[in-house]
């Protein structure tokens, strides 16, 4: 119950209800007041007229002093149901006529309320306005109210000249006519209208509260509850929660900015998480480097020293050469671990990929034989040399072969390595590494990767709201992550940061005629793409103009357990591992980084229980 009083909706309804109650109450009060006043005024007027009528109709009988007739008239009038009494009181205060026979001859006290108006100041007033001649009183408690009116009967010439000689000329007022009228009917009417107005007021207040309540619920309570739910979700750590609120008012704006905030927060958290991982990895790498470098120094110094001293012993010399070479490689690996933590550039030299593969195979051949894995090498011996970091490449191949061997397991299988020189058009393989909007906002989104490559984040803006599209960063491949298949008329593609339109005015897709979007790729010109998903036309002149390029293709297949489809998209992410405790999850992300550093691409295809194929494309010449 207490929580109900604390609710904003209740408070608003209460405030509106109280205000309505006050205004309607005040209005009703005055309304009732004026209504009863006008009713009373009407009665008053009627009573006054009645008095006048009685005075005038009895005048003649008065002059003739025909008391019976006067009595009759008064009695007849007094019989009317609303008229309580009709009395005529003479100057000395005696009731001379009355509708109640018993009263006749009784003396009236000057202090009685019917006399009070004129006799208050001891000396009687002779003329009074109508207002002061009337009085409203209750003869007995709980009896209906009564309105009394006193009309003085003034002395006239005909009075003192009449035959009866009852009045002198000097008298002004000869007596008074006192009529009392029951207000029962009037009071009933007043009560009835009072009742009506109260019912109206209550209905109005209730109706108003309900209507306000309905809209408050719709416009305030629901969105506020939604926001509350969202903040609670964010509070417990679910930063992916978004409010599906597309209204245009302030709360809608709040919801949108809330969504924006949680998204930013989630990005920041992700980055923090990532950099935290990187930092601890860096510390780990540095620690390992120091620890390993000392024993390695022992191995390297002794072996290189021996190598120098055994120049005349060819057999020993060759073996020692292997030790020195491999120790030097260990040195490079440790260094690359440190470099990885510092994200350094590869040391590229002319090298033959086949040789690097052969060397990698040598390192793990034993392991393969033990596990009954057959290795098929189908190397194109005419491969030209390529500028690569041989150590890093060897790391790539060793990692891939070890992964393949793990996938095959101990029951035997085949791993095949193929190399070939191929020519590919840039369409379908060139990676868009960076894209910017006309206002130079970075469009690449490291949060959403497609095959390990940061996607390009675009926003679709329409009257109905907005939507985010993760655009495939590979030229011509069209594997966008989107819910939208076709762009409608009112929709346009904009930069998610500044809402600048990316639509190409006056350009239509040459294949299907749909609208075309474009964005800039720093130093590599403009990129255009059809907005229809089914069409998929794209144009990148700067890359197309370079023509087809030669690549060294390395295909590494195994007949192992394969990779599940849901994992396939994530295998190049750092710390993603399907090996559980066995792996660190760094392998493939490092491989991806190395290949990317060589401007190459790596892709994977896999069928569960059939095997996995990794395909690496390394450009023979670096693009300028």
């Amino acid at each position, binding site marked *: 119950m207490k929580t109900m009083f604390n609710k904003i909706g209740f408070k608003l309804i209460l405030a509106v209800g109280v205000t309505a109650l006050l205004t309607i109450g005040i209005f009703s009060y005055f309304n009732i007041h004026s209504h009863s006043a006008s009713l009373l005024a009407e009665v008053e007027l009627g009573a006054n007229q009645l008095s006048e009528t009685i005075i005038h109709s009895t005048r003649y009988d008065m002059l003739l002093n025909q008391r019976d007739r006067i009595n009759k008239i008064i009695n007849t009038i007094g019989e009317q149901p609303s008229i309580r009494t009709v009395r005529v009181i003479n100057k000395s205060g005696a009731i001379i006529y009355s509708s109640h026979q018993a009263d006749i001859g009784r003396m009236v006290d000057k202090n009685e309320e019917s006399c009070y108006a004129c006799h208050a100041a001891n000396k009687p007033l002779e003329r009074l306005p109508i207002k002061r001649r009337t009085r409203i009183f209750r003869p007995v408690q709980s009896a209906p109210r009564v309105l009394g009116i006193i009309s003085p009967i003034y002395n006239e010439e005909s009075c003192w000249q009449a035959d009866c000689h009852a009045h002198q000329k000097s008298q002004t007022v000869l007596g008074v006519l006192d009529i009392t009228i029951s207000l029962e009917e009037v009071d009933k009417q007043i009560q009835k209208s009072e009742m009506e107005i109260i019912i109206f007021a209550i209905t109005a207040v209730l109706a108003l509260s309900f209507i306000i309540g309905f809209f408050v619920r719709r416009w305030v309570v629901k969105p506020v509850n939604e926001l509350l739910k969202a903040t609670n979700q964010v509070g417990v750590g679910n930063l992916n929660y978004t409010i599906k609120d597309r209204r245009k008012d302030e709360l809608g704006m709040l919801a949108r900015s809330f969504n924006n905030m949680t998204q930013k927060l989630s990005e920041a958290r992700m980055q923090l998480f990532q950099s935290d991982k990187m930092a601890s990895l860096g510390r780990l790498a540095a620690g390992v*480097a120091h620890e390993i470098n*000392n024993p390695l*120094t022992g191995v390297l*110094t002794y072996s290189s020293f021996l190598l120098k001293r055994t120049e005349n012993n060819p057999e020993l010399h060759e073996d020692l050469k292997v030790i020195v070479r491999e*120790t030097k490689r260990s040195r490079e690996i440790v260094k690359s671990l440190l470099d990885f933590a510092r994200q350094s*550039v590869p040391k590229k030299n002319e090298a033959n990929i086949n040789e690097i593969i052969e060397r990698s195979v040598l390192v793990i051949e034993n392991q393969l034989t033990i596990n009954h894995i057959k290795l098929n090498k189908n190397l194109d011996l005419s491969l030209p040399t390529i500028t690569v970091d041989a150590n890093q490449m060897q790391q790539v191949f060793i990692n891939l072969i070890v992964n393949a061997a793990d996938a095959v397991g101990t029951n035997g299988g085949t791993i095949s390595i193929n190399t070939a020189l191929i020519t590919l058009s840039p369409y379908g393989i060139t990676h868009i590494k960076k894209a910017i909007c006309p206002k130079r906002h970075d469009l690449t989104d490291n949060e959403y990767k497609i095959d390990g490559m940061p996607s390009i984040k675009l926003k679709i803006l329409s009257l109905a709201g907005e939507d985010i599209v993760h655009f495939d960063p590979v030229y011509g491949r069209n594997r966008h992550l989107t819910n939208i298949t076709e762009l409608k008329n009112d929709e346009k593609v904009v930069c998610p940061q500044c809402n600048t339109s990316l639509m190409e005015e006056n350009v239509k897709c040459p294949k299907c005629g749909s609208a075309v979007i474009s964005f800039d790729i720093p130093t590599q010109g403009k990129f255009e793409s059809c907005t229809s998903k089914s069409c998929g036309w794209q144009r990148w002149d700067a890359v197309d103009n370079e023509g087809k390029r030669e690549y060294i293709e390395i295909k590494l297949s195994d007949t192992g357990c394969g990779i599940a489809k849901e994992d396939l998209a994530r295998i190049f992410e750092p710390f993603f591992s399907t090996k559980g405790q066995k792996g660190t999850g760094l392998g493939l992300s490092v491989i991806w980084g190395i290949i990317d550093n060589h401007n190459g691409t790596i892709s994977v295809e896999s069928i569960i229980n059939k095997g996995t194929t990794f395909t690496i494309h390394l450009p023979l010449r670096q693009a300028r």
Partner: protein
Amino acid sequence: MNKQFDILVIDDEQVIIDAVNKICSAEGFKVDTSIDAKDALEKLSKYSYKIIVCDIMMPDFDGFEFLDEIMRRKITSPVIMTTGYSTVENAVMSLYKGAIDFIPKPFTADEILNSIIRAMKYSEVQKMLLASHIQEDDATIIYVPCPAKYYRLGYSSWAEEENAGSILIGVTDLFLKTIEGVEEIEFQKIDEEIIQGNQCASIKSKDGLAHNVLSPVTGRIIERNEEVLKDVSILEKDPYFNGWFYRIIPSESEYELKHLIPCSSDRL
């Protein structure tokens, strides 16, 4: 100073002490060893050493503190720093603090030996310089110091800021004096990145030894001095101008130059 040694090796790892001892002894050097820096400082006050090989990462008293201490004691023996924690910062810091060379672990026998041989030569050159000062014989120029507005990394390589924002780098005359005549120079490729304190070129001397040149700044090579590659004698004739190695676009020169020694300080 009754006992004379050639080399003092300081390292907290016995295997490294043994290895360096073995390599240097085989070359006929007289080697003394020390398992920590405090012990080494005691030995330094008793005996004299031509050169010192010291590890950076040691418990209690690290290589940098050791360097500071011997500078305070005005011990002139050149120091070669080694470390398994071979970061750029460590390399540059060592050379800034007065070490003459930095060898990242793990090193080969040749790498440590070549450095020791250069250090021996350096020691000789310094002695000759001292002698010529005593004799006030200015006529004999032992080596040409680098021009005033240059910066140097240790005694080996120099960097000069050019107006266009690029940086020219090369080796000092003193470095050339510590090797037995230049036979061949090996450069890195254009567009490659070189990192401060890491090897950027290799000079093969006439005695067949390979000497690594550490880069004074980090940056991308935009031009190499092909003339020097063709005719190595240019290097020995004019190491500071015609004998430059690379023109690079620095990545963070402002920060890095602070950790180099301005050549103007050599003239004070």
